[in-house]
């Protein structure tokens, strides 16, 4: 709880509200960002290192002032300075410390401030750390990056001022939306924003490469680690968003193809395509135009997602903040897209591929197929998301495009991507004989057939689920065999044990094997998705002492315990869970679950808190959707098979990302082309 001394609240740092310094600080940040654009551009055009260095120092100053402005807003939150409209709208005196902190991004103005903070700080770090890159590249990157910062700082200075004052300060604030009072919300939005903002770095360096008329891959090498960091953050942010939906929204699912979810998923899809296709540019000096186009598209989609969710043109259960900023995004997006395409068009000849494709059956072709599938997936999500707006604009009729469309249109593409994830690592670079590939495919295919047959005979009667499980088995085996093959080489050569050989294999080529670990994580996640085939759901109104069944479980409602905290009135239901019983025979005791139906005092909202018993096999998920005066409840219960694997897969992915990010930065060397590569040489670790 914050301290109060003589009527004035103090934040934990012992400072009162510094809100008065917030807006001047933001204006100073905007001025320095603008100065950085001018200085970096002049430095790049006139080849003046002193000017570009001054521009980068101005970008660092912009980051400093944006950080200070954020600190000022935080002091206002902790000091309960309700004279600020933003603080009054998204916090209250009863809000706990952690959620007072996360209230910073509870609304639009604060979200944009967090975006600007991450943008300016990451940009400053990226520019100052890129000193080994060519001067003109860094100078142009500084100009592009600072112009992006200018846009977001302008939004904060004009239409979305987080330091706007109320005519009269209320005694207490309206509080944070109860849905946002979840541990996941402390890290989900910052990670998501870190992902979105992180793509600004490869975007800025990519545009800088075009402006400085470079055709090499220096921009890729200078930003590879940032691209990985951004992609990793976005991936974790998306999974955390799913976990938040699962534990907070009470409908038993984790993904609803909601516009806000789609807004984060679209740039993830194009960024994943980019991460794969830059490997071809690095290894074969091909796909230069394609890679620049992909990073342009990824950046535009990241900003477009923000436009979609901030403009209010699409409604979403995840949208907690809308405002007047939408009209500023469209011209900005149009400018970025047109300028980007024009720049790429002027450099088409210089960016042509330097190598030929040796064979249709090659790793390069597999990467291109990967890119086609990811782009088709991104387009499908984009089309489904914007179709209602397009249709309304053309016909005046508002149609809905929801989960049935996305599931039918996206899932086949997703399954094809999973198949390719298993196939790709088996195909060698440059060329491979079909017979050699078939030999490598034998074991993964056999395992897939065994898994499908076993599950089919075991009662899985969904063709889609069987296909998904089979593809997961195929891909896991194919990727796993790469670890075995690599470890075997180290075992033979260095006489190591299997675990030590595996460690050496991964440590010596972290990029490759880190990627494979990420792929294994994705396979586990898909296993979790496929488990949804056997989901069971039941809903009943229960008086105390009554029971209901869901799947193999019996749920007995034992009663309701009511209590009150400073923030909410709590109604805690006790649900005794047994399993395997029948009408004439009680089941085995499993656990007692405690779902709640609470009334939040500050926001005057009722909110359900779900209770979940989770195991690797299945989740038992219960939620109270209504409570009446006699303590009767409406209980909604789900059995969600294999959901645990989604979160396990996410952890495996995080492990893979750690391996990827811990690898050394690549240096570019040029070696003469061998006349012919044998499969063994091409695929050796």
């Amino acid at each position, binding site marked *: 709880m914050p301290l109060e001394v003589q009527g004035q609240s103090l934040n934990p740092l012992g400072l009162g509200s510094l809100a008065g310094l917030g807006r001047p600080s933001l204006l100073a940040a905007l001025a320095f960002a603008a100065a950085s654009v001018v200085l970096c551009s002049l430095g790049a055009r006139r080849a003046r290192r002193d000017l570009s260095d001054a521009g980068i120092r101005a970008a660092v100053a912009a980051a400093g002032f944006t950080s200070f402005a954020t600190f000022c807003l935080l002091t206002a939150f902790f000091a309960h300075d309700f004279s600020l409209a933003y603080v009054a709208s998204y916090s209250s005196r009863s809000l706990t410390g952690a959620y007072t902190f996360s209230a910073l991004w509870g609304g639009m103005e604060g979200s944009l401030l967090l975006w600007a903070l991450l943008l300016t700080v990451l940009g400053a770090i990226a520019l100052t750390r890129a000193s080994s890159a060519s001067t003109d590249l860094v100078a142009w990157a500084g100009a592009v990056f600072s112009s992006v910062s200018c846009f977001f700082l302008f939004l904060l200075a004009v239409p979305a001022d987080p330091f706007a004052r109320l005519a009269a300060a209320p005694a207490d604030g309206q509080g944070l939306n109860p849905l946002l009072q979840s541990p996941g919300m402390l890290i989900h939005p910052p990670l998501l924003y870190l992902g979105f903002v992180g793509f600004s770095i490869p975007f800025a360096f990519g545009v800088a490469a075009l402006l400085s008329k470079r055709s090499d891959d220096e921009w890729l090498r200078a930003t590879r680690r940032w691209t990985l960091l951004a992609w990793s953050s976005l991936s974790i942010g998306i999974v955390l968003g799913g976990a938040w939906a699962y534990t907070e929204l009470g409908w038993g699912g984790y993904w609803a193809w909601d516009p806000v979810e789609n807004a984060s998923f679209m740039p993830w899809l194009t960024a994943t395509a980019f991460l794969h296709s830059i490997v071809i540019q690095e290894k074969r000096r091909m796909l230069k135009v394609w890679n620049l186009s992909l990073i342009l598209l990824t950046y535009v989609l990241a900003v477009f997602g923000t436009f979609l969710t901030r403009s209010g043109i699409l409604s979403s259960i995840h949208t907690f903040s809308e405002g007047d900023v939408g009209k500023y995004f469209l011209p900005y997006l149009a400018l970025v897209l047109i300028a980007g395409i024009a720049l790429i068009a002027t450099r088409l000849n210089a960016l042509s591929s330097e190598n030929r494709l040796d064979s249709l059956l090659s790793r390069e072709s597999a990467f291109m197929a990967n890119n*086609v599938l990811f782009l088709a997936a991104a387009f499908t999500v984009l*089309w489904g998301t914007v179709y209602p707006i397009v249709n309304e604009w053309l016909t005046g009729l508002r149609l809905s495009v929801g989960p049935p469309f996305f599931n039918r249109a996206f899932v086949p593409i997703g399954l094809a991507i999973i198949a390719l994830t298993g196939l790709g690592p088996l195909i060698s670079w440059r060329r491979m004989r079909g017979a050699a590939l078939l030999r490598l495919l034998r074991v993964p295919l056999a395992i897939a057939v065994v898994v499908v047959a076993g599950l089919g005979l075991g009662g899985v009667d969904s*063709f889609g689920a069987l296909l998904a499980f089979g593809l997961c088995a195929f891909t896991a085996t194919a990727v796993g065999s790469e670890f075995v093959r690599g470890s075997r080489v180290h075992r033979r050569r260095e006489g190591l044990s299997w675990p030590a050989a595996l460690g050496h294999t991964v440590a010596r*080529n972290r990029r490759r094997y880190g990627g494979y670990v990420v792929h294994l994580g994705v396979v586990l996640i898909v296993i979790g998705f496929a488990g949804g085939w056997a989901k069971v759901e039941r809903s009943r109104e229960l008086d105390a002492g009554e029971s209901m069944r869901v799947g193999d479980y019996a749920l007995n409602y034992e009663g309701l315990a009511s209590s009150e905290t400073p923030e909410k009135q709590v109604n805690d239901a006790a649900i005794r869970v047994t399993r395997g019983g029948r009408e004439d025979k009680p089941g085995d005791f499993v656990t007692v679950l405690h779902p709640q139906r609470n009334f939040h005092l500050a926001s005057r909202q009722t909110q359900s808190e779900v209770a979940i018993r989770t195991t690797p096999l299945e989740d038992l998920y219960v939620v109270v959707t209504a409570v009446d005066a006699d303590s009767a409840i409406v209980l909604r219960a789900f059995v969600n098979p294999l959901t645990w694997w989604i979160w396990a897969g996410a952890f495996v992915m995080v492990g893979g990302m750690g391996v990827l990010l811990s690898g050394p930065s690549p240096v570019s060397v040029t070696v003469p082309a061998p006349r012919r590569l044998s499969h063994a040489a091409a695929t050796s670790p």
Partner: protein
Amino acid sequence: MRVIAAVATCLFLLASPAAAAPEDVANDISNEIMSPFCDGVTLHDCPSQEALELRDRIEAWVSQGQSRTQIMSHLEREFGAGIRAAPPAEGAGFAVWLPPLAALAAGAAGAWAIVRKWSRRTHTALPVSVTMTSEERHRLDHELAMLRTAASREGERP
């Protein structure tokens, strides 16, 4: 491949859908329509009391023996065409489904054309660029040295 096809066919034929409970059918239908009471979510996912009541009405219709088509028609008459969570793949609704398929086909055709073009291109004398880590470079040097040693031993043999 023939084995896989045979197993898949057998499993497909063996799979006999059991009669679904009315609540399951009602849940399926509520996943196919948008909630008239909550913005941007299906009826299934909408937490409001009105949504709960509409789900109960749908379950009652299912219990009375009404088909999915009849129930969807009821709902469309009551709430308008926008209640369907996805337009049917016919008539004007086809415009939703066609572009993703067309994009996938166009992307595949484009990639195929590029791959064919590049694979026919005359091989130039340009070097191949490989981005290597210092570890990879060290290992390459090591393996080349081993190859040279092996080759020299081969040459020493009578």
